[in-house]
Each structure stands twice: as structure tokens, then as C-alpha cells.
């Protein structure tokens, strides 16, 4: 009998073109390469300089998302790019995709959106695949039981030319999540709690596998939120074994297999789980019942804790500086801190259930005076579905801005940004200094916490905002 293997072992073994040795890393085959405007131009130039073709345009998919404006085009079709360079970068991708035969979800595509939102939506992301992109949040696709990770531009070029990467096998790390999440507590709270537990570098060199009853109970969107944030613990990738929830979500999507192919695929995908007794290099157990609405209070995603818990004392200079930058006081909870901007969006939390959860809180309420709120759907598909349900009207009636899909304030390179000193409650994934604008202070939170904070004008627990209005009604 073969030794029991983890899901990660199975994915790794199935993609080794040349196994690794002491002297050389493995040549690892890549099934799907996702491309966007920011990390690809130098790689296309490299191909051109070497006179190479793109090996598998059929395994390559491109979109515009990072530097694109989220305000619509004017009557003449001009889009409000923040700089001529941003526009030139987008035009470069358009030209490169034409030249090398890559399918690009351009402005006119009804599927355009954030790269990690559209891959799954199109059914291009499938269990058992290896998926890469010049973007660290490629880990998102691990929610489908795919080995998915971010790469640099040199490696983008390697995949373009050979459909392969040179990789050393990372270590494996099981995150067992027992019990059930309390009502009103979701995937974003759970994953921030996990990062705070294992640390911002706690996953370095590892692939995380989220498992256990609390994970199996999550929707695909919630699983994507979990895997998306794996990189924020430094992990190479995050994984969740595919199951009936996964298959039901994928069935019928444009690039998903059909008919007998679908049945064959599901039969294979069902084998993609860690065998009993498989060895992990590290394991940790998390009790889901103890997780509360969780936010960050510092300047990296590991500085997170329950919204109502006191901020811990700084244990070193860096943490001290982080608390100073955030203007929070150790020993006191950050609940109640005045909020300037609320951002709902990014590949972490811009899918339909995220928008529904936020709209639920905003329905019949108003964004507090002086607070600016931006809601940016993750893709054109999300935008269409949200509009069909009238969610956009809930947002605009509450005083929020409803935008065109893109990365927007997650990375703040398209002109959507906060001013120095402003406090942003954001559903994105990084609270690094200056990430959302020079001097901006970011609190990472769930869509529920973000929406509740918009209404209250202060960092607030959604459960108490809902309760207060019930009492007043």
C-alpha cells in the first residue's frame, strides 16, 4: 500500500514534470496562468527579446483590474485613469494579448473583473489544478482544491515560455478548525483570528490546508476569503479539499467540464483529499466557537484581535510604532474609533454574499455624516447579479458610492485612495502603512463590520448596530 498522502502531496506529485533532487528543484507543470496588467509587461518583453512564443495561450487568461479606474467612462468613452502611465500599462496588456494570442477580458467583456474573482466564476479554476499569477493572492484559488500561488515577473515569463516553474516543495501545515462559528461571525473573522494566532510570518515556507467541520460548513465564497488571506500569514498557498459544495458551485460554469466529462472530473476530484494518517510538517487546532468579530489594530494582518478585546501591549519597537501610527492605545478596545472611509471590495470580500451581507446592514440606514463609503464589486458578473437584486440601490440610497469592478482601494494605485491620517475600515487583505494611500490607517474587517462602522461612523460590531435599530424601531 502507498503511504498516506496529504492533498498537497497529491497535487504536487501529479504536476512534477521532473522531480526535485538535492541539486535541482522540481520542474512543476502549471495548468492555468492568470495574467494582469501590472506584473506582465516585462515578461512579455522577455519573450519578445528571445523570439519565443507563448507556449499555451489556451492555458492563459488575462484581465484588467489593478490600475483601472472604477469610475465609468465619459460620454466619449474616455476612462478617468489616474496617470498616463496607468493607461499606457493597460494598453500594453491589450497589445501584448493581441500579439501573443491571449484571451483578455477587456473593458468590453461581461466577465472582466479582479483576476481572483473571475477565474472561479468562469469555471477556469478547477480542483486538482496548479494555478499561478503574478499576484500573491493567487492563493484564493486554493479554495477549490487547486495548488495556487503567486509568482514574480521573471517566473511569469518562465510560465509563458514553458508552462513550467522551477520549485522546491514547500512544507505542509494543517489548520484544523473545530466546532461551529457563532452566528454573525464569518470567514474574514476566522482567518484574521488564525493569522493572529500563527503570526504574520507563521506560514512562511508552508502550504496551509484548512480543514475540519467549521471549514466544511463554509460556502465557496467564504472558502475563497480564507485561502485568499493565507499569504498574509506568509504561506505559499492555502488549500481546502473539494467536496459537494465545490462541485455544486462549479457545475454549469462556462469553462467547467460538461456531460460525461463532468462526471469523470467529479470522480477524480473526489479523490483529492488528504488520506487518513497523512503527515503534515506542522499542525494547529483552532476552536471556531471562540471566534468573535475580528479586526486588525496594527500595520500588518497578524496584529489582529476581537473587535471588543483590548489592544495588547506592544512587545517591541515595531509594534509600538504600529500602534502610534494607527493612533490606538494598548489596553483599550478599538471599537468606537471614528471612521473616515469604508471600503467594501477586493478579491478577499467583493463577491455577491459579501455585498448582500453589507447591504443587509445598510438597508433603510444611512452612512454616517462625514464618512465616505465605496462599494466595488469584484467582477462584472457580481455587479450584474447585485444590480439584479437591487443591492446597488441599497448602497446608493444609504449614501455609498457604487463603482465599476476593479482592485480599487485594496492597492490604491488607480486613484481610489484615502488621505493621510484617515481611518479606513476595509474588507481587503493588507493593512500595511500607506497601502491605501500615504499615511492612511487601515483596519481590516469583514463586510458586516465595515458596513456597520459606516452607519455608526465609528468602528462597530454589526450585531450591536442591528440590535440598536431593532430596539429603536
Amino acid at each position, binding site marked *: 500500500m502507498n503511504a498516506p498522502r496529504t492533498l498537497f502531496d497529491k497535487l504536487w506529485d501529479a504536476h512534477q514534470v521532473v522531480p526535485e533532487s538535492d541539486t535541482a528543484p522540481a520542474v512543476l507543470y502549471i495548468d492555468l496562468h492568470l495574467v494582469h496588467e501590472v506584473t506582465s509587461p516585462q515578461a512579455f518583453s522577455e519573450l519578445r527579446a528571445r523570439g519565443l512564443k507563448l507556449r499555451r495561450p489556451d492555458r492563459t487568461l488575462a484581465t484588467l483590474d489593478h*490600475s483601472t479606474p472604477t469610475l465609468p467612462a465619459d460620454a466619449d468613452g474616455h476612462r478617468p485613469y489616474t496617470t498616463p502611465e496607468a493607461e499606457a500599462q493597460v494598453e500594453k496588456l491589450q497589445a501584448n494579448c493581441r500579439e501573443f494570442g491571449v484571451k483578455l477580458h477587456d473593458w468590453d467583456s461581461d466577465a472582466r473583473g479582479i483576476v481572483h474573482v473571475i477565474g472561479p466564476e468562469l469555471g477556469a479554476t478547477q480542483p486538482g489544478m496548479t494555478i499561478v499569477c503574478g499576484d500573491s493572492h493567487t492563493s484564493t484559488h486554493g479554495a477549490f482544491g487547486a495548488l495556487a500561488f503567486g509568482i514574480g515577473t521573471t517566473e511569469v515569463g518562465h510560465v509563458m515560455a514553458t508552462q513550467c516553474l522551477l520549485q522546491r516543495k514547500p512544507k505542509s501545515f494543517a489548520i484544523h478548525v473545530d466546532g461551529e462559528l457563532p452566528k454573525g461571525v464569518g470567514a474574514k473573522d476566522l482567518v484574521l483570528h488564525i493569522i493572529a494566532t500563527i503570526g504574520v510570518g507563521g506560514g512562511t515556507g508552508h502550504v496551509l490546508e484548512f480543514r475540519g467541520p467549521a471549514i466544511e460548513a463554509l460556502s465557496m465564497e467564504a472558502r475563497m476569503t480564507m485561502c485568499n488571506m493565507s499569504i498574509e500569514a506568509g504561506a*505559499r498557498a492555502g488549500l481546502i479539499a473539494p467536496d459537494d459544495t465545490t462541485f455544486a458551485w462549479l457545475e454549469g460554469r462556462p469553462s467547467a467540464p460538461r456531460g460525461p466529462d463532468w462526471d469523470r472530473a467529479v470522480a477524480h476530484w473526489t479523490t483529492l483529499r488528504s488520506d487518513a494518517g497523512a503527515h503534515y510538517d506542522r499542525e494547529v487546532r483552532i476552536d471556531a466557537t471562540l471566534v468573535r468579530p475580528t479586526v486588525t489594530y496594527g500595520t500588518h494582518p497578524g496584529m489582529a484581535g476581537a473587535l471588543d478585546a483590548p489592544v495588547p501591549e506592544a512587545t517591541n*519597537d515595531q509594534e509600538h510604532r504600529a500602534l502610534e501610527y494607527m493612533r490606538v492605545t494598548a489596553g483599550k478596545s478599538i471599537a468606537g474609533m471614528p471612521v473616515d472611509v469604508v471600503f467594501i471590495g477586493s478579491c478577499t470580500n467583493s463577491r455577491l454574499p459579501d455585498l448582500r451581507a453589507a447591504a443587509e446592514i445598510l438597508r433603510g440606514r444611512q452612512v454616517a455624516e462625514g464618512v465616505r463609503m465605496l462599494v466595488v464589486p469584484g467582477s462584472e458578473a457580481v455587479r450584474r447579479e447585485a444590480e439584479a437584486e437591487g443591492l446597488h440601490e441599497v448602497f446608493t440610497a444609504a449614501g455609498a458610492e457604487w463603482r465599476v469592478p476593479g482592485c480599487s482601494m485594496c492597492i490604491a494605485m488607480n486613484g481610489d485612495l484615502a488621505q493621510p491620517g484617515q481611518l479606513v475600515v476595509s474588507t481587503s487583505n493588507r493593512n500595511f502603512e500607506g497601502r491605501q494611500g500615504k499615511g492612511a490607517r487601515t483596519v481590516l474587517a469583514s463586510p458586516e463590520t465595515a458596513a456597520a462602522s459606516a452607519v455608526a461612523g465609528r468602528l462597530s460590531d454589526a450585531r450591536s448596530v442591528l440590535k440598536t435599530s431593532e430596539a429603536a424601531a
Partner: protein
Amino acid sequence: MKPLKRIRSRTAVLPHANIDTDRIIPARFLTTTERVGLGRHAFEDWRYLADGSDNPAFELNRPEARGCGILVAGHNFGCGSSREHAPWALLDYGIQAVLSSEIADIFRSNALKNGLLAVVVSESEHRYLLDHPGIELCIDVSTGCIELPDGGRFGFEMDAFARHCLLEGVDQMGYLLQHDDAIQRHEQRVERAA
């Protein structure tokens, strides 16, 4: 990539832990379609004051840190995004090597592919280097040794292949292209199975 055998330079120290890629090169400079010219924006928001003048509190602006080719940085350097613009910016700024007690995976891989030496040292050696800014080190890639001015030495671990690539200036895309037969066999095997 040019072969890289050894680096001799003084160290500049940035002791902060978790220096992320947004600090190394803020996202607003990622609209470039070139690899060069990012050095003037390395650490931009830390390095310059609002009026554009040098921030005297930023360690690398101190006169003794100028021209230092070896950066000793706090734990977990380079965490965050996959932007290769981070090592491009550091190289363009004049940094040839980064030493820390932990370096984020993607940053390390990107750095080594560009000939920026990214080296993890033990906690005690890290402590020593943090406490002694400005010393001249000689980092020898072939022996995996860091030599101190007083003749003391630290060893450091490096993946055999990464070392070989640095020493010989191996073109990794060319190396992968040589495996074309194996890649084709893999593709055929998978297509037959489907």
C-alpha cells in the same frame, strides 16, 4: 543574469520587523512597464518628507548608510505582494544583498532570480549584525560564508540550485526550455488520462 561570486561592502541596518513590499516600493510606482529606474522610489514614503526632502529619521538616509551595498533588515523582510518591483527597486538603489533572520518566500525567490543576494542568518548572528551597523562584510556565495572585519565567520544556508545559478549566472528560462521533451511527455500523459 551576471555571475555573482562574492559581495564585499559595508552594511546599512533597517532593524524594523515585517518590512513589507509596499514599504519597499509603494503600489503607485507599479505602473511602469520597465525593470529599471525604480531606485529613486525605493522606500519612497519612508525616505522622503512631505516636501520631498530626505527624512532624517530614515536609517538609510544617514551619511554612514550611503553607498552601503548590504542591507541588514529586521525579521520577515519582504512580506506581502509578489511584485518583483521590490528587488528591482533595491538593486537599482544600490543594494546587492539583504540579510535577515527571515525573508518572505516570494520576495526571496524574486530577489535571487535577479541576482540580489537574499540570505537568512541565525537569530544570534542577526542580532550581532543589527547591533553593528556599518561593518564591512564579505559574503562568499561559493563557500556560503560571511566574513566579519575581525576575521570571524558565519555560515549561511542556500539552496544548491540557487547557489549554482548565482555562481554561473544560469539563465533559468533557458534551463526550463531544455526540458521541453519532458514537458511534452507530461502534457501528452495528462491529455490521454482526461
